């Protein structure tokens, strides 16, 4: 979902900033699915996603009076949600804030080359989206390094533009593009490995 579709009218924003609870409730309902989804995909755990959901809106409530209407509200909310999710992830891993991980250093060019060339596009969608195979999608995204995973989630699952993704994460647009390419290629390779036996099985049954 592109953030333009998450538009909140200026009156609702002004009302929220003036402390109008009904306006804030409307805002929470409009944004909560997006916040929950991003958190769930970053953390892969519904309880953690709920914690991020609550903390994100508490932060929004605390800081909304400072929000300038010239900025994009959805970018701001996504940024808070992503930061909350990454903070929780690091607490769980007991890692300090890995600044180097988020810097804009040039990406290395290794391991871009695809390993699998099996054409699984022929597998029917209902099979790929069956309860059994959905697990592969979750498992594959969990295997992505954090910085690639977050870019993929914002860009390809949430459909934010390259510019919006760069604003949410505070990295350059070229870093978004490079990480997105790597994320897409890695996911494609991981899924191809999963789906290879199914394609072979289909071919045997023909």
């Amino acid at each position, binding site marked *: *979902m592109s953030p333009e579709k998450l538009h909140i009218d200026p009156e609702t924003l002004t009302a929220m900033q003036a402390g109008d*609870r*009904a306006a*804030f*409730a409307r805002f*929470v*309902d409009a944004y*909560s*699915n997006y916040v*929950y*989804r991003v958190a*769930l*995909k970053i953390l892969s755990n*519904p309880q953690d996603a*709920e914690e991020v*959901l*609550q903390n994100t*809106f*508490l932060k929004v*409530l605390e800081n909304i009076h400072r929000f300038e209407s010239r900025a994009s509200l959805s970018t701001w909310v996504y940024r808070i949600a992503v930061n909350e999710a990454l903070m929780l992830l690091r607490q769980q891993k007991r890692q300090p804030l890995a600044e180097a991980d988020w810097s804009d250093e040039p990406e290395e060019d290794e391991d*871009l*080359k*695809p390993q699998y*060339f*099996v*054409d*699984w*596009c022929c597998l029917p969608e209902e099979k*790929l*989206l069956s309860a059994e195979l*959905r697990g592969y*999608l979750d498992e594959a*995204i969990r295997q992505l390094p954090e910085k690639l995973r977050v870019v*993929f*989630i914002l860009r*390809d*699952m*949430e*459909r934010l533009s390259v510019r919006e993704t760069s604003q949410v994460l505070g990295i350059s647009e070229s870093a978004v*593009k490079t990480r*997105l*390419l790597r994320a*897409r*290629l890695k*996911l*494609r390779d991981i*899924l*191809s490995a999963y789906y290879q036996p199914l394609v072979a099985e289909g071919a045997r049954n023909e």
Partner: protein
Amino acid sequence: MNEQNKASCDVILRSLSDYVDKTLSAELCQMIESHLAECPDCQVVVDTLQRTVYLYHRTAAEITVPDDVRQRLFRRLDLSDFLKK
């Protein structure tokens, strides 16, 4: 990928995201498409990559906040009065 197409395969790989996002110039698109017509491996990579992106977007769009999670969120935010949609 066969040897004579190798250089082109590398170029395709680097431009793959821009190609599937349709943000490349017409000239580059045409160059990629003529390569794809002759390179089944790259064509498979393009097709399955597009499918990968589609599957993730499709499944993400189905995720919504469960009712009990919404209730707890509204209580935490002191918005219980507005729980009814």
